[in-house]
């Protein structure tokens, strides 16, 4: 009964470019236990983002198997995958990906547009998530009225709000200066200590060292576990 949160085996993915096939992932194996904080490193173009999208149920591998807490994800339909994203996965992006027309509160509330939840409870959870990332004083601000660090905090609050099984972060500090980057890492570590499962992509050794465990991706393979 004690399944790992994530168990992906023999993941292969290639893209068709014109007449040639471009292999990106060649049999990636990755297992993440509950409460782990894992960093994925690797050179640019090594397929880190592609892997993260597969783990986040945004994309499907060509072959391989993928289970979240023992549930076979690859047999799910498109709308079932949407449901998994809405309830179990929190994404944090390098470029924040907040909607510019909405303020912080509304941005953080966004995932609840796609999962059934009672209105009052939704508001409480949104406020809690915003408080957790320390943005309560900016709750009515639009993205254009926030600093880079604040934007990423808002994005993390949005990922947290659904209390996901996994938080997936694709270079969350890539657009931030090093000081702000460290602040964000401290926030991740806080979440990790509170029991969150986090998979984070990074280029930067210093950043990746905040994680419990570092996985290297090279030429579509994991080279050390």
């Amino acid at each position: 009964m004690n399944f790992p949160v994530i168990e992906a085996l023999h993941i292969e993915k290639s893209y068709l470019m014109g007449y040639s096939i471009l292999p990106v992932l060649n049999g990636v194996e990755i297992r993440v236990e509950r409460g782990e904080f894992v960093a994925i490193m690797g050179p640019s173009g090594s397929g880190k983002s592609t892997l993260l999208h597969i783990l986040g149920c945004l994309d499907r591998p060509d072959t391989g198997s993928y289970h979240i807490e023992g549930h076979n994800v690859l047999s799910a339909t498109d709308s079932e995958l949407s449901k998994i994203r809405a309830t179990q996965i929190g994404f944090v992006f390098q470029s924040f990906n907040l909607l510019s027309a909405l303020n912080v509160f509304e941005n953080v509330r966004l995932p609840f547009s796609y999962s059934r939840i009672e209105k009052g409870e939704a508001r409480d959870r949104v406020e809690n998530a915003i408080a957790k990332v320390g943005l309560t004083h900016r709750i009515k601000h639009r993205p254009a009225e926030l600093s880079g660090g604040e934007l990423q905090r808002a994005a993390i609050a949005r990922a947290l709000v659904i209390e996901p099984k996994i938080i997936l972060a694709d270079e969350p500090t890539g657009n931030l200066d090093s000081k702000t980057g460290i602040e964000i890492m401290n926030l991740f570590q806080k979440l990790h200590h509170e029991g969150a499962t986090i998979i984070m992509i990074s280029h930067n050794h210093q950043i990746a060292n905040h994680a419990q465990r570092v996985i290297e991706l090279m030429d579509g393979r994991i080279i050390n576990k």
Partner: protein
Amino acid sequence: MIAEIVEAIKIASRSLMQHKLRSGLSVLGVVCGVMAVLAMIAVGEGTKEKTLKQIGELGIRNIFVKAVSLSDEQVQIARELLSEGLRFYDRERILSVVPDVEDIACLKEVRAAVISAVNIEFSPQIIACSANYASIQRLHISEGRFLNNQDIEGNQLVCAIGGDVAHKLGINGQIGKFLRIENELFKIVGILDRFYRDQEAITTMAIRNVNEMVLIPLGAENLLTKREEVQNIQSLTELIVLIKSAEKVFRAGEVIKRTLDLSHNGVKDYQIIIPLELLRQAQRTQRIFNLVLGAIATISLLVGGIGIMNIMLASVSERTKEIGIRRALGATRMDIILQFLAEAFMMTLMGGCIGIITGIANAFIISKVAGWKTSVTFPAIFLPLVMSVCVGLFFGLYPAVKAAKMDPIKALRTE
């Protein structure tokens, strides 16, 4: 599903509020389409109501046989063919030959003048009629009684007068007073209800204006006409044949025509008017009008719809990134479809509502300026509204599906 739709409407209304001017401009086509459709239906319904009312007043179970005045030349031919025009004898023929006849009223226009102390220019039409004229033409008596069979058999000098006539005569126009026609005094026994027919109906449909009539018993007119005209004693101006039921009117009309053709030896000194036939004609015309209207409506709403589709396509490509983000946060394809469909739907609904308001104003202006009767009925409002909403859903569907089909990763990667 309901919750999803509500959510989609919330998201869509937000995005519309963000681009007020753009949304407003893009529904302009729908507004114009709805406005035009509504105004045209209102005008169409107005004319329809009017013609139906006019024809209805003639009575759909009636068949009118009217004497036609002939030119001198035609009179000569008629004499040779031994036709004597419309006569009392025709009534007897129709009664005995034509099936399903319930009753026949006879009318004769009398060329005589009312001599009145009040007003020299006062010249009501004098009609000699049978007693059943009132019931067949559904005339209402406001005071006294209508002419009856005793009046006719006894050659009584009595009359029933129209509402306007009574009004103009003043105190001399009351029951029991005498009305002088030529050299005879007629006792007023009844006054007809004054009822308003529009002047147009009277001229275009040749409906008699009972308000301005003096009705005397058939036969009494002989006292008023000069000796040399007495040979026409049997002639009539009009027969109104009441048929037992509306379904039998056309067949009866055929038989009447054949009967009269035979007895008049083919001389066309009479004319048969069947109100039901006029009604059918009016309905046919109406159907053609509706068809043209429908075509114009379709075209204008099509143009409006293309405008909506255009703006929705622009909106989808502009918001590719947003679609990617929403998909990553758990929106299903259906959620995305609903979001954009709701946007198109609300735009056209809004356009429809604005169009209805301006359309009603338009219909009102048309009736004031052009003097046409317009009638803003339920279908005049409902039909264009439904059509505009359908246009919104139809033309919004393609952009919405396009948005939903996007690969979320590609959408996320766009800048």
